[in-house]
Each structure stands twice: as structure tokens, then as C-alpha cells.
């Protein structure tokens, strides 16, 4: 008996030896870093900042593609190639057909919150970095995306989330623009105190001029918020010879090209009218039309994407220098003490610009403004030029409202709030009817 037990014991302890070492339960994830790890060092902050550009500018789910897409359909800039693309088809029909399940709108909405969430993580965390110049570069770069995210929400929805968190409350959309301006001011202040070092720029994607971009976005959102003096100051602070753009390469494709130009299955430009009503349409000689589109004589549709959707590696400008001129012109007209002459000067600079003179090649090559020197007429011409110069930039819906274009010119005024928000946040405002 003893021997058997002993014998069994030997066999069982052999088995037990195989078990030892296998009982470990704490495995580290080798595939990804946890939030705690990421926000514990400079490289983590930098990577997260770079991730914001990726989320904003890349792919079909990225903010940029969806903003241009949603804005383009409801403002008649785009032609729907295939009605089988349901979210695009909804926007193309507009009105009640745009519903809260629309994934294009859901992407803009969710990406904006995600960008704000992680931008805040970086901006807050970077304050603690020892290298202040590195930190201010990170804060400046990150704030660009935070501002763009706030801007995208405020342009398309009547009320915007007051912040990121559980059951977020909502504010007037104007406050969204103002928050963008506040964030930019904080970033600019940080950069003034601690100038950006070369070290941080080496770790961020090339192509973005942080300070000029911050000033340009400040001008844009100050204008949208109705703060004309601030818009004018900020626009004046932008160096109009500089380029600042989202860059693409063979691995990270220009999303407009990848999804639409290359496939000819989603959208193309509407045609050379750029979707504008009679009277506002670009002249046949306007060089900007041929910048943005090209004729395909053989295969339908006739008008094809060009411009910033031309190729896989075409860079996409975050702002165009002529947007700054048009902001100045508009602010000069709208400010409490209008300066129509100065406004005309800015407008003429846009109208007469040769394509080669523009950092991005967008030039009208048109005669100077010859219309009446009245605020109303100037504003109409400024609107017309914004529509042409900033074709497919995602800003037109905001412009249509600001320039009080008739509702019939657009297919939707504000977008419904995505179901995903409504279903899970009791503070979600009611949807606008149009």
C-alpha cells in the first residue's frame, strides 16, 4: 500500500512540476500602451499629439473627409456618384432624409469629442514637462486639433457639448467658437513664454506651421463668433507666404483621393458652377475652377475632383492664405466702424492673384472688384469668393448662414444630433427641423 501511494505521489508530483510556472495571471500587454503609461512620459504625450492629426486628417472615418463630405452635399458642392452610399445619399437629399443614424455626422461628432479628450490630456500633461520649449510646441500643435474639433461641432450643430464627460451639458454653438479662441490664446501665450524648440518639431509630422495656423484658426473662429476686431487682428498676424497643411504619403493617403477621386464611386464636384446660383457663379476665366476640377471627356461624370483631392500624396491646407484676406475683408465690412475701401483692397488681392503667386496655387487671375462700394455688395462678393476660393474646405454651410443666404440654397441648416449621443445623454438638445 505504502509503495503504491509513494508511487502515485511520484507520478503526481511529476504532473505538479508541469503545472508550476503556469499559474501566472498577470500578463502585460505587449501590443499597446495603457493610458497610465502613455501619460507618464514625453514620448507618450508626443505620440498622442501625433495621433490627433492622424484621427483628424486620415481615412474615411477621419474628421476632414467627413466634414468636407457633409458640408459639400448640403451646400451643393458635390455630385453623388453612387446612391448606394447611404450616408452620402441622405445628405444629398437633405432635409428630413438626414437622420441621426448618419455615420458621416457620427464620425464628425465622435472624432471631435475624442480629439478634445486626448488634446486636453496632452495640454494638461505637457505643463508638467521639464523642457518648457518642448511642452509649448506640444501644446501649440495639439491646440490646432482641439480648435478644429470645436470648430467642426460649432459649424454643424446648433448647440455644442460643453465639455467631455458623463452626460455632458450643451451650450450655444457660439461658445464653441469662443472656446476654440480661448484655447488658442492659451497656446499662443505658452509659446510666447517658452518659444518652441526644434526638438519637438522633429518629433511631429512636417508641414504644419504651428504659430501661423493658430493665428489663422483664431481669425476664422473669431469671425464665426462675430468678434470682428479679434478676427482682423488674428488674420493680420498670419504670415501669408507660409504654408501649413496636412501631409500625406504612400502609406497615409490623402483621404479625398483615396475614397473618392480614385474610386469614382462616392462624390465628384457638382460642375463648374460650384453649386452657386446664377449671379454668384465663377466666371469661365476664373483659374480657381480649373484648380479644383477637371473635365473627363470619356467617362461619366464629366467634372472630376482635382485640387486638394488630386493625388494620393496631395497635401491638404489647414487654411488658405486667401481665407485670411477674405476674413480681413469681411471683418472690415462688418466691424462697428466699417472700412469698405480697405475691405475692397483685401478682396482685390484675392481676385487678382495669379495661381503661381499663391503658396498653394489657388489663384483667381480676375480683374479687380468693380461693383458698388456698399457693405451689402461687398459682402456678396466676399461670399462668392469664399465659395470659390474655399471650395470643398468644409466652411460653406457656416458661410451660408453668416451671409444669410436663402434656405433654399442649402439642403440642411443644422444637423440632427447622432442617435448614439441622444440615446446615452439625457442633455442632448432636440433636433432642428431643417
Amino acid at each position, binding site marked *: 500500500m505504502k509503495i503504491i501511494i509513494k508511487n*502515485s505521489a511520484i507520478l503526481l508530483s511529476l504532473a505538479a512540476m508541469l503545472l508550476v510556472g503556469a499559474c501566472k495571471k498577470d500578463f502585460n500587454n505587449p501590443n499597446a500602451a495603457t*493610458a497610465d*503609461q502613455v501619460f507618464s512620459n514625453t514620448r507618450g504625450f508626443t505620440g*498622442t499629439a501625433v495621433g490627433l492629426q492622424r484621427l483628424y486628417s486620415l481615412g474615411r472615418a477621419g474628421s476632414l473627409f467627413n466634414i468636407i463630405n457633409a458640408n459639400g452635399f448640403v451646400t451643393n458642392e458635390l455630385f453623388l456618384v453612387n446612391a448606394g452610399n447611404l450616408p452620402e445619399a441622405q445628405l444629398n437629399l437633405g432635409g428630413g432624409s438626414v437622420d441621426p443614424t448618419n455615420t458621416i455626422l457620427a464620425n464628425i461628432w465622435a472624432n471631435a469629442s475624442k480629439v478634445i479628450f486626448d488634446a486636453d490630456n496632452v495640454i494638461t500633461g505637457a505643463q508638467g514637462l521639464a523642457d518648457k520649449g518642448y511642452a509649448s510646441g506640444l501644446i501649440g500643435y495639439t491646440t490646432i486639433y482641439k480648435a478644429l474639433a470645436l470648430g467642426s461641432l460649432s459649424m454643424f450643430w446648433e448647440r455644442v457639448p460643453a465639455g467631455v464627460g458623463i452626460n455632458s451639458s450643451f451650450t450655444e454653438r457660439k461658445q464653441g467658437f469662443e472656446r476654440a479662441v480661448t484655447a488658442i490664446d492659451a497656446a499662443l501665450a505658452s509659446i510666447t513664454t517658452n518659444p518652441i524648440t526644434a526638438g519637438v518639431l522633429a518629433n511631429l509630422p512636417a508641414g504644419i506651421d504651428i504659430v501661423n495656423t493658430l493665428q489663422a484658426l483664431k481669425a476664422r473662429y473669431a469671425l464665426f463668433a462675430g468678434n470682428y476686431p479679434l478676427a482682423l487682428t488674428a488674420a493680420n498676424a498670419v504670415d501669408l507666404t507660409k504654408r501649413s497643411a496636412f501631409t500625406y504619403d504612400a502609406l497615409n*493617403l490623402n483621404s479625398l483621393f483615396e475614397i473618392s477621386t480614385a474610386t469614382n464611386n462616392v462624390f465628384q464636384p457638382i460642375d463648374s458652377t460650384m453649386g452657386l446660383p446664377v449671379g454668384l457663379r465663377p466666371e469661365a476665366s476664373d483659374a480657381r475652377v480649373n484648380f479644383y476640377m477637371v473635365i473627363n471627356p470619356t467617362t461619366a461624370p464629366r467634372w472630376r475632383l482635382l485640387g486638394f483631392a488630386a493625388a494620393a500624396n496631395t497635401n491638404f491646407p489647414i487654411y488658405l492664405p486667401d481665407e485670411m484676406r477674405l476674413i480681413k475683408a469681411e471683418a472690415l465690412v462688418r466691424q462697428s466702424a466699417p472700412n469698405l475701401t480697405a475691405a475692397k483692397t483685401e478682396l482685390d488681392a484675392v481676385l487678382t492673384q495669379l495661381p503661381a503667386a499663391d503658396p498653394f496655387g489657388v489663384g483667381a487671375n480676375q480683374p479687380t472688384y468693380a461693383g458698388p462700394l456698399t457693405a451689402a455688395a461687398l459682402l456678396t462678393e466676399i461670399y462668392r469668393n469664399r465659395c470659390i476660393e474655399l471650395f470643398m474646405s468644409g466652411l460653406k454651410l457656416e458661410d451660408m448662414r453668416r451671409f444669410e443666404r436663402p434656405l433654399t440654397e442649402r439642403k440642411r441648416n443644422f444637423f440632427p444630433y447622432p442617435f448614439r449621443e441622444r*440615446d446615452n445623454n439625457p442633455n442632448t438638445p432636440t433636433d432642428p427641423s431643417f
Partner: protein
Amino acid sequence: MKLLNYPVRAHVRLLVMLCVFVALPSLLFAQVKVTGTVTNTQGQPVEGASVVIKNTNAGTVTNASGNYTLTASLKNGKYIVSVTGINFKSFEKEIAVTSSNQNIAVEASLEADINGFDEVVVTGTSAGTTRRQLGSYVSTVKSDQLIKGATGNVLAALQGKTAGAQITQNSGDPAGGMSVRLRGISSISSSSEPLYIVDGVIVNNATNRVTNTSGNFDGGNFVGTVGQNRLVDINPADIDRIEVLNGAAAAAIYGSRANAGVVQIFTKRGTTGAARVSFSTNVTVGELRKRLEFNQAPTKFGGPTDGVGAQTQDILTPSLTNTTPVTRYDYQDAIFRTAIGNDNNISIAGGTEKTKYFLSGSYFFNQGIIKNTDFQRYNFRANVDQVLADWATVSIGLNYVNSAANEKPDGNSFFSPMNSVTIIGNIHDIFKRDALGNLQAVGERGRVNPLSVIEDFKQKQTTSRTLSNISLKLKPIKNVLVDYTLGIDNFSQLGTTYLPPYAYNVSDGFFGGGPNLDPSRNGYASAANNTFFAINHDVNVTYNTAITSNLSSTTQAGFSQQYEKNNYVLLQGRGLAPFVQTVNGASTIIPGNDDRSEISITGFYLQQNFKFRNQLFVTGAARVDGSSVFGQDQRNQTYLKASLSYVLSGTDYWEKLGVAKWFNQFKVRMAYGESGNLTGIGAYDRLNNYTASSFLGRTALNSSQRLANQNVKPERQAEIEFGADMGFFNNRATLSINVYNKKVTDLLINRQIAPTRGFSTLLDNFGELENKGFEIVLGGSPIATKTFNWNINLLYNHNRNKAVRIGQALTLFNTNGGAPVGIIEGQPIGIFYGTFFATTNGQQVKNSAGILQIERGTQINPLQFTTARDANGLPPVTASVLRRIIGNPNPDYTATLVNEFTFKKLSLRVQLDAVQGVDVFNADFRTRQNVGNGLVAEQEHRGLLPRGYVLGNLNIEEWRIDDGSFVKLRELSFSYDLGKVAKISNLSVSFSGRNLISWDNYTGYDPETNAGGQSTLLRGIDFGAVPIPRTYSLGIRANF
């Protein structure tokens, strides 16, 4: 060990003297010969019955004539000869060996055991138990039932053979995925596939995508779990039997991972006697069961089909009213073919008293009905049982599998064989080539020519797998049994893809180079490797004791340890150099993937069973399990189980009742069990991760859209089951009924949250999932004579599934095929929730042009709405589009009817499977209309429907809901037993067919399909999956 041999033997001898029968010790061993014939009650011989002399190592099996001869060295004394046969009650007879009685005849007549009361099942017990004792329903499927179905896939062979299971073939690919749902789905976020155990080894049944790897294959969308599931590696011919444990009540002993039930597979083992060789070969022929009809209209709207000014999808542009004459093609012959296959198996089984072996080898080859697809599998197995000592035996099982498949992209892309045809109008001459033999573009939209898919795409998948197990059984002291099983499952799966550069305009999304054939984008190559290693250890100690003469007790304690490691690596690139098929030839490298995970699970259990007079059985158990994937505080979970079985027909008062004459067997049972889902989330899903990627030469870190809860805990299932097993008229008719209520609490849901939280979903425990239902198993033999037998078996499964208290009214998923799959409070999981046709008084609303309308009005909540009408009685365009539940992929019931006829040596088996009351989201149906090859488009082309009709229906999701109910002639098998032919001891030929006929109202190929593969959530979606072929098989089986 040798040193210990003598005392051990002496000890056992002592035990035999004391404990067994009255033994007259003799100093001499005599050579005893026992012979006889084993028959059934009709007098027919029973082949393969096992004959043993109890408490000795002597044993054999009967031959085809039912005869056996058994020789053994025995001392004089009394012994018991025991005869057991599959589906028979065991037979025992005492014999007395004396010096004059050494040639003994034992004739045995075996009584059928239709309910299988005395059959030994291994429901998580080391020693096994009889079905009589079970408190829950466990079905057993024997090898002879598995090999009749003309399939080389063990799960396909199991279709319709076990109660409570819905087994679906998701794709007709030669290695197409199979999903098994036992009593409905038991999870939302994770797999609902049962736990598979082969000879004690937990085998991986994962679906790993080593092909179809790039996001372009499915647009980066939610596609489910598509592709081969790894149970495809198991050879059905090696299987002795399969036990299916439907729910927690039965499976509680497996605790940790048994939420979706357990399927235990036991492979064949050797038996004492001379080597017996079995050989079988089958030739199979597969074909498309149903051809679809396509648009035959002589014209299309708008301009030409190809070349300059080409205008496709004319149907969706109603402003085009001019027409162009077109030639209409049927592309089905371009992609489908008649598939040939064969299945060869050879096995050798035999052994001595101490060593038994089973060796087998097989080669299986099966073409797909899609041209240039096939699957082959080599399988080798060695099972050896060795008696080490009277108190110790060791068993070793080794199984090597090598499988290889030639595939095409799966259904979820528009460059799969099926979808490449579905997505183009049937107006293009796809066969046209230029002078260099290059195929031409189809239309202006950059679609892939189906012939490129068939001829040029090369997509392969190879798996090399070893399943090995060692088990040790020890009887160290009286009444104690210790067993230990070590199992290892190790496989490496390699997938390669080569899409050569196209010679024509193909869109970037399909890896084309666009109109300019951009060489940096044109073509695609990938290589992916998945390596999996799992090891499990199980130790059980069983103690049996008799408390009184009527009451006995069995106590079991056990420990289990499991560890899994998975490494996945993907390389991919596009813009291929000419002729180079590897990623090396890519001018643009696409980001690859390198994913590694490890998990470990440990568990302990204690089980106590009391047995009263072989009538009343009570069992209770507790189990504690912990898994590394869950939060530290939630790791260890306790699961309880209790069951009761009462065999009323074995009691004295049953005899007195007077019904016993016709009501032979009556058992009632009840079981309660809990189990978990310890692999319910991925290895690191509890962590909030930032994933890294290369972006413009820098590293980008992006936080997941999913917010994780560090303290997430495993789902927990509690199932209660009541049942009864009855036998009537000498068990000529049997009936089993199971009623169950299976509730999963702490449901793991990756729930949608307001995006303003910074995340879009939250993975946490929410609410419950219920499956309530019943199963009826009815058996009968209306005719049973010496020459003719007729057996009927009916399975009926009814399951109702719903999500409750999930705290969210509606969760809607964006799926690749466009199916609006949702989870709604109080509704079945995976329902289709979407837009629908406007109706007034039951009549579909049409506008003045005759176009159907989408319903609009005010949505009050996900299930309630009010409709609105304008002055013309139409839904006003200013009102919101409404949604409701438009379909349910969960069937009302599934049923199987099997009729078996045997006449002398002829036998016929007919199996009908029914799935009723189920909806399919037929995405392909709408695509066919949109591109103009479908029959509705034909009516619009012919002017039978108003122009714009298809466009009007475009956004009405209800249009794509199709009736998925079917009754299928699943298996038909006809065999003839030639008996002994020359040196072949038994030869039989068989002819069988599979999926021969389907009675359904489905507009697509086959309602039994799922583009979501083995996904829990996405079911009943028809989006480009290859239809299940009709298969014929001719086979020969010989035993030597």
C-alpha cells in the same frame, strides 16, 4: 518501476481475494477459451460488441457475424463475462472456471437501450457515469451516425443529430465556417461557440483571419468572424463518439469556459485482439444546388456599358430614360463548377492485454464549387493505452494534421467571387481580352472583373497542427481513482494572398491602380501567420464508497490549469513588381500587424454524488475559477451545481402500478448549474490601451474608441433544466423532454456610450440574457422484424432569446453588409432593426408615379412610433424616417426528422432538417437590383415597374428582409453490406447525398448562410458568401 512490480501484484492479488468473488485459490493458471455469438433481440448478429471477463484483462469484440472467441489465462474460480454494445443494454453472465470446464460457451442476446440509460457518458467525471444517473440531458452521437453524411467536417456531420443545437454552415467554401449554438446564444461580445474537448484536450476552434487580412477586404467594418474555424482539422472518421452538453446544468463541472455548452469528442481506441484493419474511401461530387435567374431585359437605360461614356448603375439614375440595347450574360458559369473530392481513411486497431493501440491515417480532398478553390487535409493519429501495473494505466494520443486551402476572398469584399458578380450589371462581356490576353475593365466604376478573381487571385491557407494528450489513471488504494490529463494543442496557420496588378481600371479600394494603373498602388500581396499554443492539465481524484447496501457515495475533487499563447503576424503591401508574389515585391508597404497574447486560467472543484438503490441520484458540486483576462478583484469566481435523477420505473411501486408492461422506463430529472465565460473578453481588453501606428514617419498613439473597465468580471450563467426520459412498449418508443431556462447575468456588452465622454463604447457588465426553451427527442421503431427494421427519430428545439435590463433602449451596429443589426431591451439578440415600407390599412403606400414609400412620422421610442401622412396620403418628406424591428435571425424552432430503414443487408437513412420562422438580411438582393442584374431591375428595364422603383426602395431596409425558413433534405444515405468477401471480413458500399433539396421561399441561393461567419451577433446575413453545395458521395468500406 520494475522494482515495484512484485509487491504491487501481490497486493492486488490480495485485494482480489478479499473483495471480489469467492475465489478458490489455485496455484495453476489454465488457458480458458470463451466463445459465443452475440445477437440482438430480433436474433440478428451484433458486430463490434465488446466482450470482457470482468476484473481480468481479457477482452475482445465480435465480428460481423456476431461471433467472438476469447482466450485468457485464468485460475479456477467464478468470473463474470460482460457484453456491451453501442445502443444496447449491457449483458452479464457468470461463468465458473474449473479444471474440467475450460471451453465455455456464452451466448448473449442484447436488449436495445434506446434511451441509453446504461450507456456510460463522461460528463466531466473521470470515471464516467451512466446516463441513468444524469440530472441533465446529454446527447451522444456515435461514429456510425457521423460518417453517413457525405462530409469531411465533423460539425457538418453533427447537423441535426443532437437536441438543442442549431448548427449552421455559414459558407459553402470547401473549408467553410460552421457555427454551433447550443440552446441559443450565450453571450453578446464573445463567441457563443461551445467548448470543444478532444480526448481531454481543450481544442481551439478559433477563426483566425490569416487571409482576407487588409481592411480593404471589408472596408474596415464590423464583419463578424469569417473564415475557417479550426475544428475543420478534426477527422470525423477518427471519432468514436461525441457527447454534447447543452448548458450550464450539464456542463457546470467544466465551470470556467462552459457558458456556451461543451462538446466532448472521443476518438477511437484499440481493443484487445489481432490487428484489425479498416479502410474506407469515398468519392464526392459537389455542385451548385440552385441557380439564380438574372435580368434578361434587352435594353438598359442611358449610354454604353463599357468604354467611352460608359454608364452603369443606370437603374439608380431615374433621369436617364433613353435606352441602349445590351447583351445579357449569365456569369454563374464563370465562377461555379462541379467539384470533385475524395476521402480516404485507413486505421489499424488491436492490442494485447496490456497494450492497445489505434493508428489511423487519412487524406481528405475537396474542391469548392467556386473554381480554383479547394481544401485538403492529412491526418495521422496514434492512440495507445498501456497498462503499467494493475493499479496504473497510461494513455497517449497523438494527432498531426496538415490542412491546406486554396481560397478566394471571402464574401465581405466586392472582389470575392460571388460579390464580383453581384456588384456588376450582367451587361459586360467579361470574357473579352485584348491582344495580350488581358481582361478588360467592367464599366467605369473600377469594379473587378470576376474572371480576374477566379483566374488570377491566389489566396492560400495552410495549417499545421498537433493535438497531443497523455493521461494517467491510477488506483492507488481501494475505491480511489486518480487521473491526470495533459493536453497540448499547437498549431501554426499561414495565409498568403497575391492579387496581381490589374491590366485595367480597378479602384484603389480593390487594390487596383485606378484609371492610370498607378504601379505604386496596383496589386496586393500579404503573408500572415498565426501561432497558437495551449496546454491544459487536469487532475481528478474520485472516491467511491458504499455507505449502506442501498446507499453509495462518489466524491470527486479536481484541479485544472490552462494556458494559451497566441502570436499573429501580418505583412502586406501593394503596388506589386511583375511576377513577384510575395510582399517583397510591393512598392508600398501597408502597415502590418504584430499581435501577441497570453491567458491563463486555473480552477478547482469538488463534487459529491449519492446513489440510492440505482433509482435516485443526487449530485452537488462547487467550482472556483480564475482567469487572467479579467480585473484582479474579479478573477476568482465560484460556480455551483446540483442535480437530481429519479428513475421511477426502477421503483417497487412502479411495478405495482400496472403500467410497467407498456411503460417500461420513466425517469425524471432536474439540474441546476452555473458557469462562466472566462475567455469572454480578449487577453488585454480590460485595459485602456493606446495603439501605436506609423504616421508620416512619426509614431502616432491613438486611444481606443472603447473605454474599458479595469474591474470587469466574467459573464455568469445559471441554467435550470427539468426533464424526463420515457420508454414505451419494450422501449419501441422513447421520448425525452427537456425544459430549460438559461440566464446569463453580468452580461459583457461593448455598449455604446455618448461620444461626448471621449469614447464611443464601454466594455462592461450590463444586464442579462435569457434563453428559455424546450427540446423534444422522440424515437420509435414502428417495425422491427428479423429482416426489416424501421426507426424514426425526431428532434424538436424551441428557444426564445432576449436581452433584459441592459440599460440601453437600442444598440445598433454598422455592419459590413449593411445589415442593421441591433440589440433592443427585451428583444432577441441580433434582430434587424431598420426602415420599412409605409402602409395604410395594410396596403403599401405608393406615390402618384407608383413608387413605394419609406414610412415616416414620429419615433416615440425604439419600438413605438406614430406615422404621418400628408394631404396626398403620403408620408411627408419633412417627417422623420421611422424604424422598427424588421426581422429576426433567431428561428422559431429547428427540427430534424430521421427515418432509417434496414432490410437484410440494405439500409436507407433519410434526414430532414428544418429551420423555421427565421429572417435573412439579403444584402445581395438589393445590390443585384441597384446594379441592374436582378429581377426587379429587369421589370423596371422592361417598363413593368415605374422608372425609379428600385431607387425608391433603396433606403427601405425592410426590402432586404427575406424569409429564411427552410426544410432541407440534409442527408440521404443508402448502403449495402456485402459481408465477408474473399479476405475482407466485411465489405460495404454506400451512396449518400447532402443538402440535396431545400424547400424554401428564399430569393437568394440558400437561406442557410452567414456573411458574419461564426459571429455571435451577426447572423442571417447574406452578403457574398458561397452557397452550400449539393454533394453526392460514393463510398466503400472494408474491414480486414
